């Protein structure tokens, strides 16, 4: 396969691990990658026969142009941010929870069980509390299931959590067509939540955004200042190291996945009681997947996730604007998010390594 003759020759480019790069330079590389990804997206837009700068401007305007659209953008960012925080709990310990979608859905169903059927019994405050607790419990248990199997037998969690998404989706379709079907409706759908039980709006958006901001700070403290947060980091580095250090890895898996699923479940409740007021197959709407990219782009830092989720919400909201204005399909946001993430994944290499051309001496910084 390989010819031995070429081995003596120095390769055209070789890579050397950098000692450390100053944070300023590292962010410069990331910014360059980000701009390159927008340029690549722009080329795609150009190939479709539109002016990329106009399209980008209309995207930004579509997301921030008026108070109505700002509310819509924040409404998209809230579930994204909380789900991303939830998923980062699992991802920090290298537990690939891609079941955020399903955990959101079961959370919404659990909240719906109280919101739709006990609204005439309880006053608003206890009802909202009940919905919250129910969604946290349901999402948590849905996340716990794969963690138990992973801890006990090493079952592949990626596929397990993913399959749970489809099961939750089928269950909601069943509720829509059967037991929870709205009375007198010929179309399979679930009743609306009565207005008295809907989440109160603060500054035009349901209070979920305040909760999201609190969770950002709480998650930061949990990850960096608590023993449990430290255990997550050690398990993420190496299961064996954690075991030698006396950490009960199975317990960490279970506890953390319960939190991860619970946060996603909470999102389901917020979507149900604060945004949609009903449950459909679209209640999760891909948030569980997009949140993965949010968490990763932010390097699992909750404050970073705040910025990234607002940015992604802008792309998603803005892609609706360009659909009406330029007739570019709204799936463009997925395409663009994919491109941006490819570039951000790739640029990390240039932060840890440098390339040296043939014949150039190696300079030590």
């Amino acid at each position: 396969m390989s010819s031995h003759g070429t081995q003596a020759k120095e390769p055209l480019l070789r890579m050397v691990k950098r000692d450390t790069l100053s944070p300023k330079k590292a962010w410069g590389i990331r910014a360059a990658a980000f701009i390159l990804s927008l340029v690549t997206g722009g080329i795609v837009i150009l190939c479709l026969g539109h002016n990329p700068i106009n399209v980008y401007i209309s995207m930004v305007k579509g997301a921030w142009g008026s108070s109505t659209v700002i509310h819509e953008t924040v409404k998209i960012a809230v579930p994204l941010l909380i789900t991303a925080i939830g998923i980062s709990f699992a991802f920090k310990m290298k537990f690939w929870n891609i079941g955020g979608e399903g955990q959101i859905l079961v959370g919404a169903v659990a909240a719906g069980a109280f919101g739709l059927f006990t609204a005439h019994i309880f006053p608003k405050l206890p009802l909202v509390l009940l919905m919250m607790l129910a969604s946290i419990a349901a999402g948590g248990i849905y996340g716990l299931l794969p963690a138990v199997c992973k801890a006990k037998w090493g079952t592949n969690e990626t596929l397990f959590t993913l399959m749970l998404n489809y099961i939750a989706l089928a269950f909601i379709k069943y509720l829509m067509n059967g037991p929870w079907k709205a009375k007198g409706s010929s179309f399979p759908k679930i009743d609306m939540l009565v207005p008295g039980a809907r989440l109160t709006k603060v500054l035009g958006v349901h209070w979920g955004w305040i909760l999201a901001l609190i969770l950002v700070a709480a998650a930061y403290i949990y990850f960096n200042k608590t023993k449990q947060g430290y255990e997550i980091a050690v398990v993420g580095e190496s299961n064996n190291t954690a075991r030698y250090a006396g950490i009960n890895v199975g317990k960490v898996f279970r506890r953390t996945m319960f939190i991860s699923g619970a946060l996603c479940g909470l999102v389901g409740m917020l979507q149900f009681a604060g945004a949609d007021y009903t449950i459909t197959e679209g209640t999760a709407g891909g948030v569980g997947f997009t949140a993965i990219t949010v968490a990763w782009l932010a390097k699992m830092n909750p404050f970073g996730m705040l910025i990234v989720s607002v940015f992604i919400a802008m792309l998603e909201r803005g892609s609706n604007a360009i659909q009406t204005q330029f007739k570019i399909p709204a799936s463009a946001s997925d395409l663009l998010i994919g491109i941006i993430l490819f570039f951000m994944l790739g640029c990390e290499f240039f932060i840890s390594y440098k390339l040296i051309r043939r014949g150039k001496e190696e300079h030590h910084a």
Partner: protein
Amino acid sequence: MLSTLNGLFIAAVLAGTPLLLGALGEILTEKSGNLNLGVEGMMFMGAITGLAGSYYYEQAVAAGGGSPNGFLSAAIALITSFLAGAGGALIYSFLTITLRANQNVTGLTLTIFGTGFGNFFGEYIGQQAGGYVAVSDVTKGAFSGLDIPVLSDIPVLGPLLFRYNWLVYFAVAAAVIMAWFFSRSRVGLNLRAVGEDPAAADAAGINITMYKYLATVIGGGICGIGGMYMSMVTTSGVWVHDCVSGYGWLAVALVIFATWSPARGMLVALIFGGLTIMRMYINIPGLPAQIYDMVPYVATIIVLVVTSMRESKEHAQPKSCGLNYFREER
């Protein structure tokens, strides 16, 4: 009863073929030590490009005043879908092999990108075509069941074995060739060495980078063909929004059930193909349709848990799967 079973078998083969193609692509990829979770995305990319390839070919021929050739149209769909899947896998390979990005996240990103790619261009081409994209009857004919002289007319066995569309035989042939390739060919054995222990393979003079790139890119191309099956056969040449809808992920799961063996892959794909369409053939009284729809996913979880409970060294994932190889950190 017998005719129901025959019908179920035929439908299972038809529903299992895209799963088999996706799983074969992923087996080839994982044998090189790359865990590419982007199967769903690559299938989406193959689905839209295959459809678009045939569609634009037909448009071009019609504009020139000729009549499209079904065989040529099918060949174009095959090539474009392979290239699209391979292109997706090339992005993945460049990021994970050359730039050493995390395999899990890169694969998930490829799924998000590919899903967006498929739906975006599906809608866009539909808009241009004035509503939706659909291929003509000529191309549809090229993807319908074959009529092989003599063989197709054998009673019982004919419809059961010899009347499928050509992609079914293509998938089976790919599985057989791949099984031979892994166990009998020198290159296949080298590839397995790369996946099991890249450091040892590197020391033995095997070009790790080239093997990983080739296996991943060709594997991605095969996944792309599986996606093309979804848009050309399953939805009969019409673009349906979200048409792959989880088949790519089922294919990833099938790799585990097939214990990384292409030959067993055929059997598992048949079983799972059967599970996805069983609702139409076997009625269980009192079971709502939506609950019935859960069956393949519940079965996947059960098999996942059971296989993880009885771990065997012989039928395991290639040892280095999911880990990037850094020669300097050996």
